[in-house]
């Protein structure tokens, strides 16, 4: 099976000379179709930088990113906009819904950005809103929604164009535990049922336990990887393994199991 996303020796340096900070220092990994990949690490470890590089929000200093056979760094203009809109779905920590637009308008926003025909997307909107249980709030404004509803609307927006990969940046960061659980179950369901590929940055171990694989990053390098042994290993067991790794993160690679 061909990987959807291949990252090779990715580097991102800030500053020059003695003041140089290596946010990413040669990261290599692959994301396979239908995979639910988590990236964990402490603050400043480089996980958000990695996600931002993939999302083309920032340009890496070196290395290669290949999405579906295309060099991401070489994309420019319309091709870059298409990559962002059609290949990627982005789920923000703070939802980033436009507060002067209804849920429906927010979800359909990527369509209007990428000149997509509305007819088939209406069908997809129906499916997604039904699955994410947001049918009743489609004509409401974000100020009239709960945090969980907002994030599910944001999820629908990220999924509306049926992207190859969903990038989620701390999607449960602004949610209470109940809403976080609902969201993660929905994302997990999407991954299981529709084979959606998800790349999620988080430092919430519970959220991470929904993943099929987790990369731990520290000081800009991958220093550990956990794979969930599906279907043998339960979510609870995986969660405990994650907790052990995160507990020992402070000690560096010597302490990792």
């Amino acid at each position, binding site marked *: 099976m061909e990987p959807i996303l291949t990252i090779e020796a990715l580097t991102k340096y800030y500053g020059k000379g003695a003041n140089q900070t290596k946010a990413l220092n040669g990261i290599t990994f692959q994301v396979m179709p239908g995979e639910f990949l988590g990236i964990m690490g402490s603050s400043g470890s480089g996980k958000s930088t990695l996600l931002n590089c993939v999302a083309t*929000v920032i340009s890496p200093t070196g290395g290669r990113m290949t999405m579906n056979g295309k060099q991401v760094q070489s994309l420019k203009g319309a091709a870059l906009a298409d990559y962002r809109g059609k290949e990627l779905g982005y789920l923000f920590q703070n939802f980033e819904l436009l*507060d002067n637009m209804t849920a429906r308008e927010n979800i359909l926003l990527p369509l*209007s950005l990428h000149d997509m025909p509305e007819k088939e997307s209406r069908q997809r909107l129906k499916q997604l809103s039904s699955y994410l249980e947001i049918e009743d709030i489609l004509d409401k404004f974000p*100020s009239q929604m709960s945090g969980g509803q907002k994030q599910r609307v944001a999820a629908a927006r990220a999924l509306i164009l049926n992207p190859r990969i969903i990038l989620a940046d701390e999607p449960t960061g602004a949610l209470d535990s109940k809403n976080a659980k609902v969201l993660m179950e929905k994302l997990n369901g999407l991954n299981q049922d529709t084979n959606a590929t998800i790349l999620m940055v988080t430092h919430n171990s519970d959220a991470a336990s929904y993943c099929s694989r987790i990369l731990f990053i520290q000081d800009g390098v991958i220093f550990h990887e956990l794979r969930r042994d599906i279907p043998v290993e339960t979510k609870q067991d995986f969660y405990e393994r994650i907790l052990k790794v995160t507990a020992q993160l402070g000690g560096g690679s010597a302490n990792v199991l």
Partner: protein
Amino acid sequence: MFSKLISRNSKRNRKENRLFFGSLVIPVIAFYMLLSLSRQDVMIFLEKLESDAVSKLLSMIPVFYGLALFILFFLIYYASKYQLERRRHEFGVYLMLGMRRIKLFLLLIAEDFRSSIVSLAIGLPSAALLSELVSLITARLVGIGIINHQISFSFHALLGTAAGFLLIKFAAFLILSGKISRQEIGSLLVDTPDGTKKQLPSFFYALAALSGICCLAAAYFRAISGIAWYRNTQMGLTILLGLTGTLLFFWGLRSAIGLAAALSCSRRRLHAFNFRQIQETVMYRSNMLAVCSLLILAALCCFGAGIAISRFYGSGTPHVIDYSFQDPENMGSSAGIRNALNDSGLNDCFQNLFEIRLGHPHAPDDMDGVFRMDALMSALREAPASDSRDVLLNNLSYADYPYTISLSGYNALLNAAGLPLLSLDQEEAAVYMDASYVSQEGLRLLNTILQTRPEAVLSGHTCVLTGPVQTTNLVADRSITLSFALIIPDDVFDSLTSGSHSVYLNGILAEELTAHASLLSAITDMNDRLDAEHIPYESYLKNMGRQLFYMVAASYITIYLAIIFLIIANTVIGTGFLMSQRKSGRRYRTLIRLGADHETLCRCARKQIHWYFGIPVVAAAVSSLFGVRALLGGILSYKAKNSLNEMMLISAIVIAVLIVVEWIYIAAVKRSSDHYLLKLTVPMREE
């Protein structure tokens, strides 16, 4: 360090915001132009002729200056508000770093003072130059000539401009910095858009928009039908209806925009986003947009009125006679004047000197009923009903003791004017009316009736009234007008007036005198010579001076106000858009993450700018169609109103000015918007 920061910030402000810096230069120019009015060539010239009126106008300048200060305060307020709003985050950081509020206040004051000095440094020379140019151009246009040109620079105007500008700048700044310094650091650090606001059911907004349109329609109807001009209270009511209508319309407009957003067709890029942004603006700033629309309307009306006044005022009758003399010691003869002119050698300066005799018919007992024209009046009464007919019926009902004019004198006048001469039988009398008393339609009506040769009785003699109605001015002094008179053969005139008549000696300057200089300077020279000889006279110049005064005063003031209104409205709209765009920065960032490129965002923002400017401008333009028409109808003469082509030309000029101003502002706002969006796009990617 502190002064370095001030210098750097002040420079950056000017560089990043040329449009708004330009808006600060405008008040400087406006103040200077106003205060240096008394130094303009036209005003100096007019002061010699119409010293009372000019002194009155110039004594009004402080009041007008106060009004201009008040109006331009808003321009400065909005321009400065935008400057400060866009730096909220920076102020938050200063405060977070421990800068005391008083120090921040001082920093802002010092920065502002620096910018003000630069504005004055640029504005004052530009204003002096512009004032000089206006002085020369108007002098050239009205024919004073530029030989006696005086430099219009005025130190008094310079001081007044600097003081006024700094005063309103400081006042605006105190209010704005007070507002900023009261805010919490947190709210300064984060740009939050206005967001959604609790809304009433859309029925109310639709109802408001509808009531607004009804109020406006009522106001337009009252203005055009003339009801508004009857009394001050009627005018007040009309203006109130117009204001209420505009405010209600803009308040209710959100329902229509909401509907457009809801019916959005996603084929067009960011259609829903654009409409929601516009809707938000209309929701939060409906009053501001309404006021801007009213300001643009006021500007259009002032422009229209100003140009029309300058074009039409006093241009109703052609100029024939340069001088009229009347001997104050013997009004019934021109011999004294002729002798005086001969003795002084001024006789040769006139190519034509002729007498006009006029007087009342001799009525020893009762002045009532000296003249009756029942046939004409009954024919008028039977004519189809119209305003002109009613005006004529009313005016002519008072014509029972008219002046009579001797035919020979009037024919000499017609000859000088190059018009066909009159030929009258003993029993005939030609009707004379001054052009200002009768409309074109009235003239047509009267001429039709006169073709039937209606009979009339003058001092017991039956005569036949003939047409067409004569309207050529009898003397140079345009303040002497006759609403109704009869031109009769000389012998009839002599017998009716029994020798008690007035004689005016009219003169037309010799061609060689006017060939080398403008008529105005030729008459000015002749006036000096006549004054030296103590010969009493009325010259065309005085009338022209009077006309020129009204023309200059009215058109100067209206056009001046129009420019100020237009600039304020556009600055407020422009700053309003850019401020709301900055507050929506986060939304634009989200769009970038969702795949919008810089070009798409710019296109989307430009569309919003078109709408944002378009709504108030179109509303004002539609209102001005009625407003300008009503205003011109109310203030201009019949003749001007009949000149449809001229009116069209005026409208075209007004529209062209509006388009140019809007284009400049829209282009400048688009530039600022593109620049801001580029900043949003680029740093995130280069980080």
